[in-house]
């Protein structure tokens, strides 16, 4: 298996942009990544694209905008982990020696999708979904257990939203660049007790892209190749086998796989970008990813360690909560953010002397299965 490096990253503006087509959003990200890598569209040998809503030749539609055609193109869907899946697809193509250089792009136009401004409706066969298990309801029930078992408070959840909104103010691509206080988060509209509106990620349009190549040829293009030291993607189990809803069985497995592949442990990670669709989810993932022990997520947020400038910054981009969450773009966008930090190009958000970063993405509801049925973890190093 060959070593693979990221040589170019790019993203579009994130926000409510219904006037922009998926091709336009995607092309913004792809053009930015091509410019960042300093390569010609002619050099791209393979492309993977991910999109959840109205899937139809997304790669071909986007890449025609920059002149890329006549190459192998693959379109994938894997809910929120779609971007991670596309990135891993390109990683495999290059690691396995099929191609030397390729592009992964994730895109979503949420404001023009059938779920714009609505909760994601349940599938016909999803009994629990029809009985009222919406995404916020599920995370609210998890939050209740975090409060019962771990002593978490709604103020702690609000603090995560406050932190990520503060981070987003430093990110020119963010949907919401506005600071909030804990009180403002708690007093925003109640969605599912104790989850309020400002603890939920918004509807977002946007795209992100990454260009990968074999490590051997990376030096032709850049003096700062970022190595992909772990690429993992995994699906979860039947719900009967999850005893504790505050711990994801899937993430327990995949994070071990990722750390083993990378040859490092959570203590070696300098920053994390993760799926924080709901504020309390970030606290869960601190534990699932091993950033702290079980039950210590509350202490980690209270300590300030996960803020920019802290010991282990989490979501310095602003996260899904305030940078925004175009579903299939987020899995690549998180990797873009990690790459910027590892190159020391993250501006005011920079994690000092970052050497290793972890990008996590997670999602999907399937009847009978554990909540959050698919996850991707990538670990990158400079």
């Amino acid at each position, binding site marked *: 298996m060959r070593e693979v490096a990221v040589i170019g990253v790019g993203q579009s503006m994130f926000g409510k942009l219904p006037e922009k087509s998926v091709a336009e959003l995607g092309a913004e990200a792809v053009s930015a990544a091509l410019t960042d890598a300093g390569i010609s569209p002619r050099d791209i040998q393979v492309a993977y694209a991910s999109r959840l809503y109205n899937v139809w030749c997304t790669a071909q539609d986007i890449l025609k905008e920059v002149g890329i055609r006549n190459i192998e193109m693959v379109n994938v869907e894997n809910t929120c982990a779609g971007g991670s899946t596309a990135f891993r697809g390109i990683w495999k193509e290059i690691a396995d020696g099929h191609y030397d250089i390729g592009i992964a792009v994730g895109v979503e136009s949420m404001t023009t999708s059938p779920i714009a401004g609505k909760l994601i409706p349940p599938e016909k066969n999803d009994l629990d979904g029809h009985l009222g298990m919406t995404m916020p309801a599920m995370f609210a*029930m998890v939050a209740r257990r975090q409060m019962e078992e771990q002593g978490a408070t709604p103020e702690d959840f609000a603090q995560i939203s406050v932190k990520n909104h503060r981070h987003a103010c430093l990110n020119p691509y963010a949907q919401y660049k506005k600071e909030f206080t804990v009180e403002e988060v708690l007093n925003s509209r109640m969605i*599912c007790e*104790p989850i309020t509106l400002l603890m939920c990620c918004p509807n977002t349009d946007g795209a992100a892209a990454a260009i990968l190549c074999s490590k051997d040829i990376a030096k032709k293009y850049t003096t700062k190749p970022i190595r992909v030291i772990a690429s993992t993607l995994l699906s979860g189990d039947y719900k*009967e086998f999850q005893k504790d809803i505050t711990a994801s069985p899937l993430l327990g497995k995949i994070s071990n796989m990722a750390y083993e592949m990378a040859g490092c442990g959570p203590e070696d990670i300098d920053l994390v970008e993760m799926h924080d669709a709901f504020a309390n989810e970030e606290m869960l993932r601190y534990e699932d990813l091993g950033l702290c022990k079980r039950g210590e997520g509350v202490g980690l947020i209270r300590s300030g360690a996960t803020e920019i400038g802290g010991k282990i910054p989490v979501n310095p981009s602003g996260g899904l909560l305030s940078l925004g969450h175009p579903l299939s773009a987020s899995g690549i966008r998180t990797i873009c953010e990690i790459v910027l930090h590892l190159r020391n190009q993250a501006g005011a958000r920079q994690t000092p002397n970052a050497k290793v970063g972890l990008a996590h993405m997670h999602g999907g509801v399937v009847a009978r299965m554990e909540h959050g049925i698919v996850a991707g973890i990538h670990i990158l190093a400079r």
Partner: protein
Amino acid sequence: MAEVVPVREGTFAEDAKGAKLLGSKCRSCGQLFFPQAKFCFNCFGKSMDEVVLSRRGKLYSYTIGHMPSTHFQPPYAVGFIDMPEGIRVFAPLKMTEDKPFKVGMDMEVVIEELWQENDKKVIGYKFRPV
């Protein structure tokens, strides 16, 4: 009179004593499932027996929704109930005036109309504080 249809066939029944939920149990390894499973997700055994779950369980978690879901207008309550058989059931909850929800409280199953759809009454299970 509107036709009455169950939210899902084979998930519940009613007898003289009241409502009951129907799960299934693997004849080989004993793993329980709710709703019933066609085969055992644990050991892949194909012989499954229907089991009647207890009428009462304990509230594991809950929330009160303030945004409409597919079939419910706010405020509505949903939660997980841990059954004595060792299985967790997700269900709509009935809100009462005098018994606010609390993790660990005793809950009992009831069968009632959940919503109406295409001139049909959809009935199913809910849990209420004992």
